[in-house]
Structures are given as C-alpha cells and as structure tokens.
C-alpha cells in the first residue's frame, strides 16, 4: 500500500493527468519556440547582436516556461481535495512530492532541453555553445522545477496565485540563471565551462535534498484552512 503511494505512483498519475489533455504535452516545446521568436521581433534581427544575447534569452525563456506551468502543480489537487487526502496518508510525503516534481520536469524542463538546439539555431548561437547549453539546461531546469514547486506550494491556497508565485520564486532563480547562461557563454568564449556546470550540479543536489522536505512542510502549513 505504501509503496504504491510512492514516487512512481505519483509520477505515473501526473504524467497520465497531463497526457489526458493531448494538446498540453507539446505546448511547453511550442511556447519555448514561440517566445524565442519574439526576441528578434522586439529587438533586432541582426545575427551579430543576437549571438551575444542568445544564451541569456534561452535561459530567461526556460524560466518563464517553468513558472507559467508551475501554478497548476498543486492547484487542482488542492481544489478537489486530493491534497488533503495526500496529507492525511500515513507515509512520508517526500517521495510523492518528488514524483510530482519529476513529472513536471519531464513535461517542461526535458522538452525544453531537447528543443534548445533549434532555438540556438534561430538565435545564431555559435557552434561551441550547443553542448554546454544543453548540459546546463538539463541540470538547471531541474532546479527550476524544484523551486517552482516550492513557490506553488506556498501559493496553493490563494485563488489567484500565479503572479504571486512568480514574485516568490524569481529571486531564487537568480543564481541558476547566472550560472546557466554562463555555462554557454564560457564555452563560446573558449573558457572551461565545467566550472559553472559543476556549480549548477551542486545546486541541483542541494535542491533535491532540501526542496521536497520544504515543500511537504509548506503544504501542511498552507492547506490548513
């Protein structure tokens, strides 16, 4: 009974919930693509200029896509009473929460990482930048999902939480975005990019260890009403 309520069960259920609405699976990918085309439209089509800002733009986009989809992470579970059922279940909630976050990453962070070479192409990213950018995104979006889940847990009991969530989570994203875009930037400039990537990895490790615990206690706190 307990094993069934664990990591894999939640992962499977959330993926199934997301998959039920077929339009939704592809949309993080498309959002990413679409938002990236806005930049040249609003700024400049000049490849020379775009090249410089490409990694930064891609990271800002990754961040916004994660945030946009995060507010529904716990919202529907809260409204229909599933969250309450989770909270009064006997086992520790850490694994279920990690399962939910993984499902979120699999449907935002991972597709975004996979589509990033295409964005690099659109924004004339130099060839040296592709591999580090993908590595950085793969690791960094994990952190993004975990932090977004924390924000979602904090705002779950508020009706209109999505903007508030952004406010809470954004400051926490600062270091990730700095090191993330640095990873690509370093390799473009010919420097060793393992440094910022290692820092990202360390942040991910800490986030995996601490965030689920924090999320669980925050959920216990905010859903009491």
């Amino acid at each position, binding site marked *: 009974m307990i094993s069934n309520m664990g990591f894999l069960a939640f992962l499977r259920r959330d993926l199934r919930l997301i998959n039920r*609405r*077929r*339009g*939704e699976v*592809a*949309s993080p990918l*498309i959002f990413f*693509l*679409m938002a990236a*085309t806005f930049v*040249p*439209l609003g700024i*400049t*089509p*000049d*490849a020379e200029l*775009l090249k410089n800002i490409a990694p930064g733009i891609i990271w800002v986009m990754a961040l916004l896509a994660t945030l946009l989809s995060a507010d529904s992470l716990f919202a529907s579970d809260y409204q229909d009473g599933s969250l309450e059922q989770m909270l009064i279940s006997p086992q520790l909630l850490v694994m279920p929460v990690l399962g939910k976050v993984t499902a979120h990453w699999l449907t935002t962070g991972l597709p975004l990482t996979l589509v990033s070479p295409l964005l690099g*192409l*659109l924004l*004339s990213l130099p060839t040296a930048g592709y591999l580090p950018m993908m590595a950085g995104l793969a690791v960094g979006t994990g952190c993004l999902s975990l932090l977004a889940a924390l924000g979602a847990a904090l705002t779950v009991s508020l009706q209109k939480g999505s903007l508030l969530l952004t406010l809470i989570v954004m400051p926490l994203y600062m270091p990730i975005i700095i090191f993330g875009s640095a990873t690509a930037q370093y390799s473009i400039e010919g420097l060793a990019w393992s440094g910022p990537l290692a820092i990202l990895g360390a942040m991910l490790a800490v986030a995996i260890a601490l965030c689920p615990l924090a999320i669980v206690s925050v959920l216990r706190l905010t859903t009491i009403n």
Partner: protein
Amino acid sequence: MNWNWNWFYRMGSPRWFYESTSRWLPWLGALTVLLLASGLVWGLAFAPQDAKQGNSFRIIYLHVPASFLALAGYFLMAAAGAIGLIWKMKLSYMVMKCAAPLGAVLTFLALFTGAVWGKPTWGSYWVWDARVTSMLILLFLYMGVLALQYAFDSKDVANKASAILALVGTVNIPIIYKSVDWWFTLHQPATISFTEAPSMHPDMFQPLLVMILGFYCFYAVALILSVRVEILSRERKTSWVRGLVKQATHKNLGAE
C-alpha cells in the same frame, strides 16, 4: 430556390463525399504520382544548373510548392471552419480538422527546405528575413489551431473553437505579413532577401510549374484521404459504414 441549394446540402453529407470520392480518387492519385515523378526527375536531373548557386538551387522544387500550399492551406482551413460555423456542416469541420496537421507539416517542410537551402546561400540555417519570419508565425498559427482542436474532449466544441481561432488567424495573416515586412525594412537593409525572384530561365521554371501542380494534387489527395478516415471513424455507427465494413471483410474472406 430549393433546387438551387440541394447540391450544397448534399455536398455536406459525409456519405455523399465518401462515395463520390471513392470514384475519382484513384484517378487523382495517379495524376499526382505522374506529376510529382515527372517534375522531380525533370527538375533534379534535367534542368540546367544555376549559374551562381550550382546544384543547391534544385531544392526550390520542393521549397516553393510547399510554401505556396502552406499558405493556401491555411485559408482553405479557415474557409472550411467558416462554412462549418455558418451552415453547421459536419463535413466542413472534418475538412478543417484534417487540413490543420497537413498544413502544419507543409509549413514545416517549407521552413526546413528553406533552412537547408539557407546554409549554402546565406551561410547560416536561419536568418530573420521578413518572409521567413512570417512563415514561422504561420506555423505557430497552425499549431494553435491544432492544440486547441485536441485540447477539448467534446468534438463539437473543439470544432467550433478552432474554427473561430482559424478565422481570427486569417484576419491576422495579412497584418502579420505587412508588419513583418515593414519591420524587416526598418531593421535591415535588403542584403539577402528574395522578395524579387530573379527571372528564372524557362528550363528551370517549367519543372517548377509541374511540381507546383503536382503538390496541389498531392494536397488534395492527402486531404481527401484523411477526411475519409475521419468520416469512417465518426460515422462508424451508421448503417452505411457498417455495410462497407461487412463488404470489405467479405471481400477479404473471398480472397483467402
């Protein structure tokens, strides 16, 4: 007045569509194969090399027809949606639904061939040229319609909602084309635009015409085929589809 509209409503009947297309689809299919095969062979093997671009220009035989149809396909889709909204015709919704993925694929093909062509001619796969940008936006419009179509579980609501979105998109397409054009001229001197097509040598142009015709036929065939599949799945409970199924299994058994 009545006799005047009869054909129109009969045309709206899925069964009529299915049965009449059964008759002339093979002919259209044969014509498509003929046109595409001859156009390809002519264009790829016999047309002269381009003076500046060498053999890489031959991708034009895919690129230009795909681009044409991508745009035309959107208007067809929106028109089908409008007919569905106004005359509540099931068939035209089916046409709209099937035109969306087809158009999206063609748009993608145009983008892809353009990008591949861009590497030898522009030196990079992607350039923010006006027409290229508006093509990308067209792809997004297609994707919006597709996503909306599949997001609703009620087929009726899905049809109407994506028809409305397609219509809003058609209002926007000219605006988008104009604004992107204008934006392009604002930002960039026309170094690598292809707005003025170099007047092509007739030996290059004739196979292109054949290919464009072939693509139109191909589009028609693909659309009709997928509409027929859609009809069968939607009308599977009706007696005439059941009859068809019975006939088909009978034939299969007879063959064995």
